[in-house]
């Protein structure tokens, strides 16, 4: 186990800058998720940590050792690939044993370690099978088995669950987390799925366009996004964002460009007559006959445990999520109250939270 330090790491592909200077400190035994939309550079960063991509600038340290120019095989890391990258011509046991075999570990020890890993992942009955004879979840487990059998200093996961169906994904999520808890090996986990990141990681790094937008514990990021991007990226259904202006003459309100007037409890300091972006998460909107906002329902999506409503208020669309069942149908009008304590404000130019 080891710490991983990423210092001002940059990556150019020709003239295209993919990673633009990233600093992340990962503690020993920490589970960090790199999350961001596709093309944000998270996979490239992971591959640089793995040694699969050359580093254009900066430094990566595993433990105390700078690994910039160290070949992957000498970095003592293990990686689980998005499509598992199981060797199709080797059995499960051979897949798991491959790295040990290359290292020259004795046959007996290989067997022991493979059996142990297989036991942890309940792969023992499958050891003699070829990858094509396995289900998606089983393949996923073999990929993990291949990683843990080596007992590496760092685990790298590159979107390992994205090829599974929704149900299996939830199950495997739990398994990975359980495994992590058991091994406590430093883990870097790349995903574009914010739920995975939120549920699994000790810390989340949100990347966008080659830079880190925010780094922190899951709920901290959810509640206090540093900027509009993070606010929009984290949370599903996505946060409602309305550009508009503050009015403090009569009472503090925010008037969106679409004409919705949202009462505020306390406007941000120096907000008078200034423009900004108001953000409100769908679940922080409640039905309230006395509410200030009127919504014309367009779409209702009841899922049983909650109800999602898409509607129109003045010129704005609004997403709302109710924990309770609401009997609304398209065409109905309902009055809403936006929880003033939960309202977020962002600077219109910089996108930073104010």
């Amino acid at each position: 186990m080891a710490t991983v330090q990423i210092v001002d790491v940059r990556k150019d592909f020709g003239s295209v800058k993919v990673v633009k200077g990233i600093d992340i400190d990962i503690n020993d035994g920490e589970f960090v998720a790199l999350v961001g939309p596709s093309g944000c550079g998270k996979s490239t960063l992971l591959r640089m940590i793995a040694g699969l991509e050359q580093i254009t600038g900066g430094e990566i340290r595993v433990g105390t050792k700078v690994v910039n120019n160290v070949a992957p095989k000498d970095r003592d890391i293990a990686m689980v690939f998005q499509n598992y990258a199981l060797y199709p011509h080797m059995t499960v046991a051979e897949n798991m044993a491959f790295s040990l075999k290359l290292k020259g570990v004795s046959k007996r020890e290989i067997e022991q370690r493979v059996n142990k890993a297989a036991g942890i992942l309940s792969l023992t009955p499958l050891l003699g099978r070829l990858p094509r004879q396995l289900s998606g979840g089983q393949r996923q487990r073999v990929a993990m088995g291949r990683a843990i059998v080596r007992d590496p200093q760092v685990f790298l996961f590159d979107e390992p669950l994205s090829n599974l169906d929704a149900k299996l994904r939830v199950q495997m999520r739990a398994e990975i987390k359980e495994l992590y808890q058991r091994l406590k090996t430093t883990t870097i986990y790349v995903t574009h799925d914010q739920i995975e990141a939120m549920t699994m990681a000790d810390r989340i790094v949100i990347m966008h366009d080659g830079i880190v937008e925010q780094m922190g514990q899951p709920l901290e990021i959810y509640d206090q996004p540093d900027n509009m991007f993070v606010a929009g990226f984290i949370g599903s259904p996505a946060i409602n964002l309305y550009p508009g202006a503050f009015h403090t003459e009569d009472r503090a309100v925010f008037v969106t460009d679409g004409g919705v007037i949202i009462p505020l409890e306390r406007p941000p300091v120096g907000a008078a007559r200034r423009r900004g972006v108001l953000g409100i998460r769908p679940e922080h909107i409640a039905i309230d006959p006395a509410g200030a906002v009127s919504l014309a329902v367009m779409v209702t999506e009841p899922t049983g445990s909650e109800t999602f409503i898409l509607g129109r208020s003045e010129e704005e669309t609004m997403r709302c999520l109710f924990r309770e069942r609401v009997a609304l149908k398209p065409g109905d009008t309902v009055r809403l109250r936006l929880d003033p304590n939960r309202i977020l404000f962002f600077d219109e130019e910089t996108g930073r939270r104010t």
Partner: protein
Amino acid sequence: MNRSFTYRTSLLFLAALAALWTLFPFAWYFLVSLTTPGHIPRRFSFPDVLTLDSYTSALFGSGAKGISANYSILPNIINSFVVAGLTVIGCTVLGFGAAYVFSRGRSTTLAVLFNALLVIRMTPAVSLAVPIYLMISAYGLSDTHLGLSLVHTMLSLPLAIWLLKGFIDGIPTELEEAALIDGASVLQVLRYIILPLAAPGVAVAACFVFLASYVEFMFASILSRGSSDTLPIAIAGYNSDHQTFYNEMAAASFMSMVPLFIFFYFAGRYMVRGLTMGAVK
């Protein structure tokens, strides 16, 4: 499918016509291979003697003097297989690594080199005949298996690289990366990952290279002086100044198609890829 009777009948008629066009020459020639020189029909009729003698005498040179070439094609079969075998080895050994680099590399130089392969493949072989003849004889390699296979290797190398690249393209790079992380060196990646996974591709490419060498006529005829004659030369050779043994020529022709026949069952579905150098999949 509900189609009209007329439609189906005319389809069948066309199919019969096409089958006649491709198969009839074979059928006639096959009859010739089953008879003896004196009994080749002189009018549109069935030969009155049917025997496998032509096959045994072509194979073992065992026919009766005067009505047989007294010539065994066994040495030619061996020549053909040795030359084609050496060519397969040459093309796979030389072509595999290059195919890997072409498959995984992206650069202008590589693109130019790769297109050069296509240009090489399309160069009329006869244009190279004089200098290659001079080279091969200067090294004392004319009329040897090695000399001919060196030339055939040259002729088939572009196709081999092209085909192998197509197969290696189908191997995900993640597998190599996984192996790298598992601690493999470049050689080990090639040895443990690419080679076993490309094995069917190597086999298909080997088939194409083998057959290209097996049927090649011009260089085989220029570079051989008799003792390294391959099958096509031997077959054409039944037509000599002295005598044309049509029945043995036919028998030898039919025997020579065995490897091609096997190939169609083994790698027939890769035909198109090979024919077009992978330009069409």
